[in-house]
């Protein structure tokens, strides 16, 4: 019986698979080694460019009237130098910034950045956007506005920052529209951007935006608004509590940014909210703003079924204006809920350890 299947299609296919796989493996190894050499070459080039240019950039930034002799700048060195220039620019202000810009214009950064803006690589696009922002190049306005609506959150964010650098007032409407529509901009970075724009420029557009946004969009933005301008944050939060007092998410967010103790009496009813975040944040607000009049309410919250509410309430109790060691002892003596007692013990131990 002949069971030798050596010449069958399946065997041929097996041989072919083996050959293709072996060739592919060899090619990939070769690619890996070439990539390694290329990256090493790039690293050396980067180090050389930085080694040559960093002292010159620093000298130009800090010395008025410095005119050091500049080395040749081949096109392949440009992205490394632009990256270094941007990093230094992030750290300087005023005259130094102007001198760095003069140098950049002499080296043709503006034209190079406009060219890089069309790159398909996000990293290069962002480098171009940062450069044009630092150069405060008004001719880049239109292309930066196009990048502001980019689907890539980072590209869009850097475009916003560049537009603020060029003309903060003019940039605000477009940026506010993005703030309202996007969920992908990191809040804290956005707050820094608005701080850079200047409180006077950002204040009213932000207030108008926050009060006109759909309720679902407000809670994630409110903490960052308070970072930009704490007083404005508190004012907007108070207004939002009046308008959307039944929206759990808005109430929970608003409680965290209030600065005005006079609003506390209107907030006490939230202690019986079904939402644990609201009860927890109420305890935090009382801790920041309250005095001994809030003791009973905090004792009630210290018996809450949620650990974090009990924890924040106990912390708030210790922070109340006018609270003394004797006062805490008196509260402890009156507490009958074992959970509340445990929590008071916990936060007092924490406080004693610092």
């Amino acid at each position, binding site marked *: *019986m*002949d*069971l*030798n*299947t*050596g010449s*069958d299609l*399946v*065997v041929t*296919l*097996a*041989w072919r*698979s*083996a*050959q293709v*796989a*072996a060739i*592919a*493996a060899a090619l*990939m*190894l070769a*690619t*890996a*080694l070439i*990539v*390694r050499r290329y*990256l090493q070459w790039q690293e050396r080039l980067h180090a050389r460019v930085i080694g040559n240019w960093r002292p010159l950039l620093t000298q130009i930034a800090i010395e008025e009237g410095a005119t050091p002799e500049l080395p040749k700048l081949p096109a392949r060195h440009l992205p490394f130098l632009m990256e270094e220039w941007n990093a230094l620019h992030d750290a300087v202000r005023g005259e130094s910034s102007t001198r760095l810009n003069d140098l950049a214009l002499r080296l043709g950064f503006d034209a190079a950045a406009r060219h890089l803006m069309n790159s398909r*690589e*996000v*990293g290069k696009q*962002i480098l171009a956007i940062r450069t044009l922002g630092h150069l405060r190049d008004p001719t880049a306005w239109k292309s930066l506005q196009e990048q502001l609506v980019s689907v*890539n959150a*980072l590209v869009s*964010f*850097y475009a916003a920052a560049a537009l603020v650098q060029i003309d903060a007032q003019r940039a605000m409407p477009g940026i506010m529209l993005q703030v309202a529509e996007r969920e*992908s901009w*990191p809040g*804290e*970075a956005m707050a*820094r951007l608005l701080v850079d724009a200047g409180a006077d420029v950002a204040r009213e557009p932000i207030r108008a935006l926050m009060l006109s946004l759909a309720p679902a969009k407000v809670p994630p933005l409110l903490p960052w608004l308070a970072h930009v301008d704490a007083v404005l944050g508190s004012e907007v939060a108070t207004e939002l509590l009046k308008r959307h007092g039944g929206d759990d998410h808005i109430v929970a967010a608003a409680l965290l940014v209030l600065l005005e103790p006079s609003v506390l009496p209107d907030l006490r009813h939230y202690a019986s909210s079904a939402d644990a975040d609201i009860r927890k944040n109420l305890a935090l607000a009382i801790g920041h703003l309250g005095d001994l009049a809030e003791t009973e309410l905090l004792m009630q919250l210290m018996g809450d079924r949620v*650990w974090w509410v*009990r*924890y924040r309430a106990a912390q708030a109790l210790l922070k109340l204006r006018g609270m003394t060691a004797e006062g805490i002892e008196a509260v402890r003596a009156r507490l009958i809920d074992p*959970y509340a007692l*445990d*929590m008071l*013990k*916990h936060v007092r*131990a924490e406080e004693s*350890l*610092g």
Partner: protein
Amino acid sequence: MSLRGFLEGIQWLFLGYFIVLNSIYLGLAFTALFGLRRYMKGISAAERVYSHLQMPVSLVVPAYNESATIATSIRALLQLRYQHFEVIIVNDGSKDDTLAVMTREFQLQPFPEAYRVQIKTKPVRGVYRSLTHPNLRVIDKENGGGKADATNAGINAARHPIFYCGDADSVLDPHSLEHVVRPFLEDPRTVACGGTVRIINGCVVRGGVLEKVGLPRNPLALVQVVEYLRAFLGGRLGWSAINGMLIVSGAFGVFHRDTVVAAGGFRADVIGEDMEMTVRLHRKLSERGVRYRVAFIPDPVCWTDAPEDLATLAKQRKRWHRGLAESLWENRKLCFAKNSGSAGWLAFPFFVLFELLSPVIEVGGFLVMGTAFAIGMMSGTSFLAFVAAAFALGVMLSTTALLLEELSFHTYPKARHVFALFVVAILENFGYRQVMSVWKLDALYGWLTGRRILWGDMKRKANWQQ
């Protein structure tokens, strides 16, 4: 069916299986390649924007009889470059003086913690807080329930929205937390995130911090370097791109605390609690119609000690395969479930066919063809063709992982390291992979017959520690 027909059928099955398996892996590797390129290009810009954003993280680390290394491990954790984190060490009823060492080294003091039991665990005997490091707490609990139970006790004490769980003997990259919180910041739907785990054997670690990267001299550990590269850079990165990642490694995983609590915490009655948790999260969240993401970051965030002897390696791999079987079986409702997306429709069936049952096909295929060849029913050419195809496809896959590594992190500093790993990728086909398949088959048989699995002691040389 004639014997010839049967043999041909087996040959087609064997070849088809290898081609489909490797094509899927290759597809995953290419998906990973594009994901990796995008990730690497955006990383510096993202770092600038997110550098000030630090989501607070609780680091939960169970420890059992680790008095010799626990102080170094904790110091390494406390040195992580991150602002907002707390370290919770769970002493799982150690029989040695682990607790005494921690008390001495970190000036622990009993703390009247208002400990909340959200996930039921073995009783907690006490909570301690460090006087020297306010962000260090130790939960001392009764032994029982393994790493899962200890982790659950740590989760109960954790105060931050996301928690890391890992092993006390793993070494974390100082920037690991910065990297791993990014998916949670970028996408609030993220419920879990894993990172690339690398082999630490052959590296130099001083004071719990990785100082120099190298390759191990021990051949078993060396093969595992290639295995880990293949698994993490090829497989997991590819699966994560389509939200189909079923494993977040027990050595390094970050989870959304409330989601894990709502899912009931880690199960102490399964072997691979890390995988079971990830599959369960997929199942529970898709059952509830919740939109979620299980993410993976390719950065080498964690370095772990690989077994250097066959007995320890066998125990580890049998445990892993048993864990895979349990995780898939316990969460079988995920398979082809409504709303389960890539996890239920692609990853789950793939893991059943090409991971869980792979030893049956591989060992079976080799046995049938080897026997046919030995008794003269199959020509040498045919036999060689199949063996060559299986080996070459395996080598190609490993080389893809090496290429991915070179295109991204190029962690291994010298070109000879790449050559060495390529040679290992070839040599592992001569014995190592077959032995793995046999161990996996044994684990599968053990699971099917309900054989008890004994943990035994994991022998670790840890000669990289200085």
